[in-house]
């Protein structure tokens, strides 16, 4: 199934809304390749709930799961998050600087 880039960005951002999912991502950044059990261990959640969070992160393309024997190891995939953050950062820089200049202009120049 072809997934549109639009819904890709939607999924990235909605996946990042949840603090548990952000905690999982942060941990995977430090410790790549953790198993699902290891991810679940410090969380105050039952394994099925953790699996659901991992499904959301997987759908958003933020993680990749690899099965070897009975163990599923999980890795961070940085691409989608970088795409979304790059978009925001670029415009934040552009607009905050432009709006500073707008403020100078409308406040200081005579009408």
């Amino acid at each position, binding site marked *: 199934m072809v997934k549109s880039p639009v819904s890709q960005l939607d999924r990235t951002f909605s996946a990042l809304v949840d603090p548990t999912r952000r905690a999982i991502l942060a941990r995977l950044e430090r410790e790549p390749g953790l198993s699902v059990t290891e991810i679940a261990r410090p969380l105050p959640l039952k394994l099925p709930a953790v699996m659901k969070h991992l499904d959301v992160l997987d759908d958003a393309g933020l993680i990749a799961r690899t099965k070897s024997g009975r163990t599923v190891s999980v890795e961070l995939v940085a691409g989608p998050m970088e795409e979304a953050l790059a978009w925001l950062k670029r415009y*934040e820089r552009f607009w905050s600087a432009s709006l500073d200049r707008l403020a100078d202009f409308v406040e200081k120049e005579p009408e």
Partner: protein
Amino acid sequence: MEQPSLTIVRRFKASPARVYAAWTQPELIARWWGPDGGPVLDAEADLRVGGRFRVVFQTLDGEMHECRGEYREVEVDRKLVFTWHWVTLPERRSLVTIRFRPAEEGTEMSFTHAQFFDEATRDDHQKGWGGAFEKLEGLFAETESAGE
């Protein structure tokens, strides 16, 4: 579902009419548009629903930039909504919404720039989106088949 969006709220010591004019009159746009002190080289604004604007500016590093868009809502001194794209990235469209409200000593402006795709650009988009998302699609395909 949330699209990525950037919201900035600013207060200006100037009337809503003044701030609105600075956004909508080409000769005033030319006085502030752009992230550094580089010059605006050209500004046009056909201020009506369906009308278009373009602003060409140079940054201090010498790079030229051109942004364009189409007005979607025009409420004098109160609200502006326009689409936005860089001329070099026509397939990536977004939407800017600005509200101007009278506030103590001037204007409160709430500004939102959001990813946005209407039907037409969504179609363009699927054809035109560059390498990054193709790679991502590939990644999805791999992840999906690995998960089976």
